[in-house]
């Protein structure tokens, strides 16, 4: 193996082992920050030793043993031990004598409880959302500070600061390294799912031609979701989120045109959708449904995405079902944006008048006052109903509200197309 090969191999081992390593150490040290520090020490040791010795047969156990020895050394050197640390020291001393196979099983964590504890800790509500995202990518994804900074388009020191502060907050708040039980579980699980979906969306919002780190965020979020689905296979909410991410990710290849311009869902070349991810997404949705209970917000959104995924052409879309699913979503998470989406689905299923009725109710909604999609949708429906002058005014209003130059141009073009007056635009009326 060349030096480059061995470094790439160590990188690969690290990517596979680091989360479990940190999780196992965190259980013993009861401190996520310290756990990561000693895991890093073990990586440095591997980078020093493995180029000469070769990669050991069980690299995970080697890293774990090394990290634990470092931890013991450090605690011994520290003259002013707090009582708490003394206990940890004794605990580690006791474990130091473990045979290699026992070390292996300590790392094995067959049920994955340590990993689950680590996920819950990194997404703890005591941390800000930004801190949760950074810490999750760092501890679970094994991303470097530099990679996280590039992904979120912020300076590297900012991310480093966020992570340091997050670890300190966890230590100061004495957040226990545990899986929440009972009533707390649902809320804490929601926080975990929210973090994973935010990571996914951060990558999904980026368009082609941008930094490769942003699409990598989607892959990372999907990987975390898939891991979580295996760790807690009986939680339908997790399968719902995985289904949503798999189906959304299936559209990657179709979302942008040759010059990087975004292509809207209904205009996408469905042949470019990733069939394997669609298949996995539909299977995950089925799993969520099979586990019973009412579908959660992620599963409902996944079910909506699945309606699009199942339609071979845009014209075959089951809009009535999508409208019904949006209605369910509006009941779970009432929001004017969901209502607006429902209005679009209603208009596609039952004609523009059905959609406009709902849209008109939203025009007085304060939170949509500056939301360009409201006048854009309303303009579209008015145009289809032949109310051309009103449609033009709505497109112009939408153009004045959007911050996206490409979108503004498009909206102004649509407004201009209405300028000819109703007689010329009769062709835009629905035929039935």
């Amino acid at each position: 193996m060349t030096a480059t090969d061995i470094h790439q191999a160590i990188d690969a081992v690290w990517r596979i082992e680091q989360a479990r390593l940190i999780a196992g150490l965190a259980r013993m040290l009861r401190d996520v920050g310290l756990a990561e520090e000693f895991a890093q020490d073990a990586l440095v040791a591997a980078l020093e030793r493995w180029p000469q010795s070769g990669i050991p047969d069980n690299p995970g156990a080697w890293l774990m043993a090394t990290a634990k020895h470092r931890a013991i050394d450090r605690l011994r050197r520290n003259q002013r031990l707090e009582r708490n640390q003394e206990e940890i020291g004794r605990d580690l001393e006791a474990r130091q004598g473990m045979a290699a196979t026992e070390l292996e099983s300590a790392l094995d964590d067959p049920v994955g409880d340590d990993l689950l504890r680590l996920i819950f800790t990194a997404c703890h509500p005591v941390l800000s959302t930004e801190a949760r995202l950074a810490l999750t990518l760092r501890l679970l994804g094994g991303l470097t500070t530099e990679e996280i900074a590039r992904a979120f388009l912020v300076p590297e020191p900012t991310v480093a600061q966020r992570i340091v502060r997050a670890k300190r907050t966890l230590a100061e708040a004495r957040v226990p390294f545990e899986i929440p039980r009972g009533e707390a579980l649902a809320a804490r699980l929601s926080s975990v799912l929210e973090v994973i979906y935010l990571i996914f969306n951060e990558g999904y919002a980026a368009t082609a031609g941008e930094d490769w780190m942003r699409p990598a965020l989607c892959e990372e979020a999907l990987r975390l979701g898939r891991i979580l689905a295996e760790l807690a296979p009986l939680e339908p909410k997790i399968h719902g989120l995985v289904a949503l991410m798999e189906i959304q990710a299936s559209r990657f290849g179709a979302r942008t045109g040759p010059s990087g311009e975004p292509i809207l869902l209904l205009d996408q070349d469905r042949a470019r959708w990733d069939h394997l991810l669609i298949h996995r997404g539909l299977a995950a949705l089925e799993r969520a449904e099979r586990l019973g209970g009412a579908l959660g917000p992620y599963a409902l959104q996944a079910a909506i995405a699945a309606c699009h995924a199942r339609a071979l052409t845009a014209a075959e879309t089951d809009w009535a079902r999508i409208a019904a699913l949006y209605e369910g979503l509006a009941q779970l998470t009432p929001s004017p944006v969901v209502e607006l989406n429902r209005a679009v689905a209603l208009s596609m299923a039952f004609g523009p008048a059905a959609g406009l009725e709902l849209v008109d109710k939203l025009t007085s909604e304060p939170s949509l006052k500056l939301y360009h999609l409201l006048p854009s949708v309303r303009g579209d429906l008015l145009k289809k109903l032949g109310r051309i002058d009103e449609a033009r005014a709505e497109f112009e209003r939408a153009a004045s509200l959007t911050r996206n130059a490409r979108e503004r141009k498009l909206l102004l073009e649509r407004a201009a197309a209405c300028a000819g007056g109703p007689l010329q635009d009769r062709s835009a009326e629905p035929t039935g």
Partner: protein
Amino acid sequence: MRFMMLMIPKGYETATPGTMPSAEGVAAMMKYNESLQKAGVLLALDGLHPPSMGARVTFPGGKPKVTDGPFAEAKEVLGGYWMIQVKSRAEAIEWASRCPASENEIIEIRQVQEFSDFPADVQKAAARLPEMQMKSGQRAGS
């Protein structure tokens, strides 16, 4: 990036029809498969019946000719595959290295071609490929 890990068991080229792996072998392999799944990298996997139950279609002079298995000339045949999603070729190699394979087994690692890997002229020639993949995938999924 996606990789196929292709399992090539030596001796499988002459295995009799209906040859099955031992229960112990399968149990060990399932543990490995689970480790791939728990790590969130496994996308798909399958095992294949031996070539003695299959056939080869060759094209001497451009005309199809069917030969029933086993194939005397075959030195290496597929026994199954995994498809994984990983960050690098090195990660695929590391996963393959962890397989509880025996001395007479080989795992070949091959990166899956994505449509975007093709140059423009090949993309044009293969324009309907994703559509075919989609339709076949939907059939499998329904």
